[in-house]
C-alpha cells in the first residue's frame, strides 16, 4: 500500500463511542483499577505490620530488649510504610514534562530514586527485624547458621524487587533512547 492509502485506512478506522457518564467514571481515582489495587495492598501491609509491631512490643519481651533494638525495629517498619505513600503518588504521575521526551526523562529519574530508596528500606527492614530478635540472644554457630538460612528467604523477595525495577526502568530507558536517537 502507498502512504496515502495507509493514511486513508488509518483515518477511516471506526472507533466506538463511550458514553459521557462512563468517561466521567474513569476520571475518578477510586474507580481506577491499578490505584485501587495499590491502595488495597498498602492497607493490608499497614494492618499486617501494625499487628507485627503490637506483637513484638507486647508479647515478645520488648521491655527486656535494648531501647536501641526497639527504636531500630520501629523505624525499620514505619519508614517503608511512609515511603509507600510516596510510591502511590508516583504511580499516579505518569505525565512529568511538557513533551514526551522530557516527561520520560523525568519519570525515569523519579523511578530510579524511588527504586533505590525502596530497596534500601527493604534492607533496613530485614536487618531491623533481625537485630530486634537477636539483640538479647547469645549467638552460637548453630543459631548463626539458622539465621543465615532464614535470611535467604528474605533476600529472595529483595532480589525479585531489584529485578522488577531494573526491568521497568530499563524498558523506559530503551524507549527514551529510541525516541531521541537520530536514525
Amino acid at each position: 500500500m502507498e502512504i496515502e492509502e495507509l493514511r486513508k485506512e488509518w483515518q477511516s478506522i471506526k472507533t466506538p463511542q463511550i458514553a459521557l457518564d462512563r468517561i466521567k467514571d474513569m476520571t475518578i481515582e477510586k474507580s481506577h483499577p491499578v490505584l485501587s489495587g495499590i491502595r488495597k495492598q498498602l492497607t493490608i501491609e499497614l494492618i499486617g505490620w501494625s499487628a507485627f509491631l503490637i506483637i513484638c512490643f507486647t508479647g515478645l519481651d520488648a521491655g527486656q530488649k535494648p531501647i536501641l533494638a526497639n527504636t531500630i525495629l520501629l523505624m525499620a517498619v514505619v519508614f517503608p510504610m511512609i515511603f509507600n505513600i510516596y510510591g502511590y503518588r508516583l504511580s499516579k504521575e505518569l505525565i512529568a514534562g511538557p513533551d514526551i521526551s522530557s516527561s520520560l526523562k523525568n519519570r525515569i529519574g523519579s523511578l530510579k530514586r524511588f527504586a533505590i530508596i525502596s530497596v534500601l528500606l527493604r534492607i533496613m527492614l530485614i536487618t531491623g527485624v533481625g537485630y530486634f530478635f537477636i539483640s538479647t540472644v547469645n549467638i552460637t554457630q548453630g543459631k548463626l547458621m539458622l539465621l543465615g538460612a532464614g535470611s535467604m528467604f528474605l533476600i529472595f523477595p529483595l532480589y525479585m524487587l531489584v529485578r522488577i525495577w531494573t526491568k521497568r526502568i530499563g524498558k523506559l530507558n530503551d524507549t527514551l533512547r529510541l525516541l531521541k536517537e537520530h536514525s
Partner: protein
Amino acid sequence: MSEREFLTMIQDNQRIIHKVCRIYRDSPEDREDLFQEIVFQLWRSYPSFRGGSKSSTWLYRVALNTAMASFRKNKPNVISAEYLPDIQFEDINYEGNERQEKLLASIRQLSEPDRALIALYLDELSYQQIAGILGISENNVGVKLNRIKLKLQKLIK
C-alpha cells in the same frame, strides 16, 4: 474550563484514545486498562491545559505519553466482580476491516516511539506539531518518518 467541557472534549476526540490503545496494547483487557489510564491522566493534566495548543494535539501528547510510560499488569485475566465488563467496554475491541487490521498489526510491530511518530503522521499532524509532542527536532522527525514509512510498507506487503 469546567468538568462538563472536559468530558465533552474527550467524547468528541475519543477516537484518538481508541487508536492509541489499539497500537500500544495487544489484548482487549490491556486496551481497556490503557483507555481508562489515559482518561485519568488527561483529567489530571487538564488544569495545565490552557487551550494554547489544539485539544487534539494535547490529547495525543498525554495519550502517547501514558501508553509509553505505564506498566502492563503481569497477572492472569481474572475479572473481579467490581469491574464487570459492560457493553460500552466490549465495544473498545471493535474490529475493523482486514486492511485496517493489517495496518494496525504492522504498526504494533514497530518500536514504541516509531508507533507514536507514524500515528501522528497518518493523522496529518505537521512536522512542527509532531516535534512539539515528542520533544525532538523537526529534522529528526523527517529523518525518522522516512525510515518508518519504508519499514511499514515492507511489513504490510
